[in-house]
C-alpha cells in the first residue's frame, strides 16, 4: 500500500471512530455539512483522536481547515 493510501486509510479509521461507524461505512465524500453523523460532538471526538494519534496538539490553522477526509490527511502528513 502506498504512503498516500495508508494516510487515507488512517484518516478514514480516525473519522470512523469519531462517527462511531465501521470504516467500511464511512463514505468517500464524507464532509462537514454533508454527512449527517458528522456533528459537533463527532468533530470533537475526531480532533481529540487526531491529537492522541499524533501525540501532540493539532495546529489551529490545520484543524480549522478540516472539512472532509483530505483535511484529515493533510494533518496526518505532518506527523
Amino acid at each position: 500500500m502506498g504512503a498516500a493510501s495508508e494516510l487515507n486509510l488512517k484518516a478514514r479509521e480516525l473519522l470512523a471512530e469519531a462517527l462511531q461507524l465501521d470504516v467500511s461505512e464511512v463514505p468517500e465524500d464524507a464532509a462537514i455539512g454533508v454527512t449527517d453523523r458528522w456533528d459537533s460532538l463527532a468533530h470533537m471526538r475526531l480532533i481529540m483522536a487526531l491529537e492522541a494519534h499524533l501525540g501532540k496538539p493539532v495546529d489551529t490553522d490545520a484543524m480549522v481547515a478540516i472539512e472532509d477526509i483530505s483535511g484529515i490527511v493533510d494533518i496526518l502528513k505532518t506527523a
Partner: protein
Amino acid sequence: MAWIPGTPIRLETENYILRSLTPADATEAYIAWWNDAEVQKSLGFPPRGWTKDQAVTHISKFDNRGRFHLGIFPKGQDEPIGFFSIIREAGSRVVTNVVIGNKDYWGKAVVREVRPVCLDFIFDEMRVEKVVGKVNSDNYPSIFNYKALKYKTEGVLRHHAKDLDGNWIDEVQFGLLRDEWFEIRKDLK
C-alpha cells in the same frame, strides 16, 4: 411584520422558539448556566459565581436595538435550554455567541437549527453587512458549527488568551457576509 427596534423579538424553527429574554427569565436554571464550569468553558471563562441580581443585570443590558439576548425554548416548554446573543459591534457588523446551558441538549444539533433563523433576522431585519463569530481554538463543537454553515475562516489569532489551565490558546475568527448568507440559505436542507 417588520421588526421595530427596541421591541422584543420572537423567532421560530421546527423545534424551537427563540425570544428576547427579560429579567423575569433569570431563573435558577439560567443562573446555573453562568455558574457551571463545563458550560462556561465554552465561553473561555471559569464559573462566574453569579447571583440572581447579577443575572438580572446581565439580561437588562440587552436593549433589542443593537443587543439581543434570545432564549432558546423547545416548543411546548417554558424553560429555555440556552441562549443566542446578537451584539452590534459597529455600524454594520454584528458578533454572535450561543450557549446551550442544558446539557441534555448537547449534541442535539440545536445550534445548527437555530443559527439560520437568527442569521435571517440579522441580515434581513438588522440589515448588517457582516456577522462575526469568535471562538477559542479548543472549542471544537463551536468551530464545527461555524464551518457547517459555511462561515469563512478569517484568521487565527495566535496565543490570544489562556485556557483555564493557564495554557496559551488561539482564537479563531469566523465571518459571514450578507451576500454569502443569501446564497448559503438557498441550499439549506
